[in-house]
């Protein structure tokens, strides 16, 4: 395999890397489009509606049509907005969402995966940069709803990043590695099976914190429609709005993939090819997120913060303690 660090970089190598990246990008875009379609269909069924069924067979091309519509729309910049910030904020939010996908092991062959030794850390570190994009977008719009939305999202995401990180810690302790590939292979041979079994508390904390990280119902306060109109992207239109939207759905996919990898055994499973196992588990995870969205009302902001600091973090800490104690005894 080509080692980009030590071997001379030729144009061929560069082109190879570029093409690889573009392929992954389009693959992810495809997945995201159908995540959106999946959400609309699932929630449609849950609400006794049909969901998209006009563009293409079964409405399969609806998301594509939506994206095209957004790309063709006028890019409106409010007169009193902070122009450079307003333009750059969606990009800051969007780029890390794609970057985190680099470490997810989709298949047993690692064809798309960077075997980073600190994969989990990489995910958490990069996803925290997206918050900067959201806060800046809210600030640059020069709209009070956007500002409050941005502030709320910053407070929320910082609060929930802590239980998210702590909930993963139990898995890391069991696997003894931050490398996501290693974590998956460990789960295949672990005597308790997938880590959802020994780490059930961690898994619950992870799912709750993940929903909050994604700003989805019942934790969708930054974009709470009935309170803040659209929160931090109230003033955004066209493809800048699409950037935020896509970033949100890429994170839905990414965090589901991370959850699958950490707790549900990743690509591991009998009979079926590894990528299919991964797809099934991730879809189930995504489905759960949508299910919650269709069921729950929204929590209030102070309750949300209280819940993170008073409930989730102590529980996650307790889980770490328990994991440590159990792995010493057993």
């Amino acid at each position: 395999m080509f080692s980009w660090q030590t071997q001379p970089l030729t144009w061929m190598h560069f082109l190879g890397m570029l093409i690889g990246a573009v392929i992954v990008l389009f693959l992810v875009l495809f997945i995201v489009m159908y995540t959106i379609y999946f959400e609309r269909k699932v929630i449609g069924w849950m609400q006794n509606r049909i969901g998209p069924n006009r563009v293409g067979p079964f409405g399969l091309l609806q998301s594509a049509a939506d994206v095209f519509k957004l790309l063709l729309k006028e890019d409106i910049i409010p007169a009193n907005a902070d122009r450079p910030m307003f333009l750059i904020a969606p990009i800051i939010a969007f780029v890390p969402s794609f970057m985190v996908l680099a470490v997810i092991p989709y298949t047993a062959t690692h064809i798309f995966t960077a075997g980073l030794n600190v994969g989990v850390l990489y995910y958490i570190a990069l996803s925290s940069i997206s918050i900067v994009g959201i806060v800046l977008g809210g600030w640059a719009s020069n709209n009070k709803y956007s500002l409050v939305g941005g502030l709320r999202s910053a407070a929320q995401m910082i609060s929930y990043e802590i239980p998210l990180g702590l909930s993963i810690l139990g898995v890391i302790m069991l696997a003894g590695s931050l490398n996501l590939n290693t974590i998956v292979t460990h789960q295949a041979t672990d005597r308790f099976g997938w880590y959802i079994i020994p780490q059930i508390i961690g898994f619950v904390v992870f799912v709750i914190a993940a929903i909050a990280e994604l700003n989805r119902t019942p934790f969708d306060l930054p974009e709470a429609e009935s309170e803040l109109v659209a929160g931090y992207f109230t003033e955004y239109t066209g493809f800048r709005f699409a950037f935020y939207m896509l970033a949100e759905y890429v994170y839905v996919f990414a965090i589901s993939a991370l959850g699958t990898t950490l707790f549900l055994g990743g690509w591991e499973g009998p009979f079926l090819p590894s990528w299919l196992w991964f797809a099934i588990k991730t879809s189930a995870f995504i489905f759960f997120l949508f299910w919650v969205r269709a069921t729950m009302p929204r929590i209030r902001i102070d309750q949300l913060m209280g819940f993170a600091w008073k409930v989730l973090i102590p529980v996650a800490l307790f889980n770490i303690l328990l994991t440590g104690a159990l792995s010493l005894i057993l």
Partner: protein
Amino acid sequence: MSTSLRTEEMILNVGPQHPSTHGVFRLVVTLDGEQIIDADPVVGYLHRGTEKLAEGLQYTQIIPYTDRLDYLAAMLNNYALVHTVEYALDLEIPARAEYLRVIVMELNRIASHLLFLGTYLLDLGAMSPFLYVFQERERIVQLFNEICGARLTYNYMRVGGVKWDAPPGWIEKVRDFIPFMREKVKMYDKLISGNEIFLHRVRGIGVITKEDALQYSLSGINLRSTGIAFDLRKNRPYSLYNQFEFDVVTGKNGDCFDRYYLHLEEIRQSLRIVEQAVAQIPEGPVLGKVPKLIRVPAGEYYRSIEGARGELGVYIVSDGKDKPYRLKLRRPSFVNLQILRKLLIGQSMANLIAILGAVDIVLGEVDA
């Protein structure tokens, strides 16, 4: 936080175009951080001068205008007007007409309360109930469509009766609707009333005391949620309400949860009334003997009915002509909305929507 920290106040305009004000309603909120220190409701964006217009219209011509007040419960508005005119004329109403009126009014109350449930939950961030309630409401609206040809602005009542008799099979359809709706109410109760997040958002929020409720002239569910059993259908029976068995349900705490729950309970009570009315409805004419041109004898008359949102009254000053000298509409939403400022001050911004939603206003009625 101690008060020594210097903070800046922020003025936030909620509305006139905002997803949760249910119409063109503006709330100028002064915020200190997330805490509301003042709230000034600004209404009038939907003012059409119904009262002024009515002074130039004959009584029958006013009926369609009342449809546009509380457009979620137009049957009740229709009735409030024709009832006051009938009261002034001391008219005898044919029994079948009265029964039909009670049936459509209670159905309309159910439809209106259903929409409250949906929009309130939507305000609190739950989107599914909003889509569920529209299915039951659709059945009611279909029934109305069959009886009067309109889905929203019915113009169904007439002085002395109703415009159309029920089409064949309509009464049976209403009868079939009752058990269906009962099941659905049970479902909503299960779905919503026990939800922990929902309870955290509405329990103990926006508490109205008995004294405040009386001082602010609240009516309807806002009044009954404080524990005062005042329902004009019971306390000052009009139409056939003294013939039906139903309960006036009251709350205990006067908070948003009580107001939500009373809506559910009132749907149950309305179903009981509809059930009895459907069982008893006689045959006969639906429009009494009324002069072609209705002239209300000179004098002043005030009658009020229990609307979907509270005491819905019509005050007529007549000089004996075929047009009212002055028509004043006592719109419950308008009066109930006044307490909003008191409820909001001192609350956190996040509670604003929960409180505003539970007061249950319709802007068409507030602004008349």
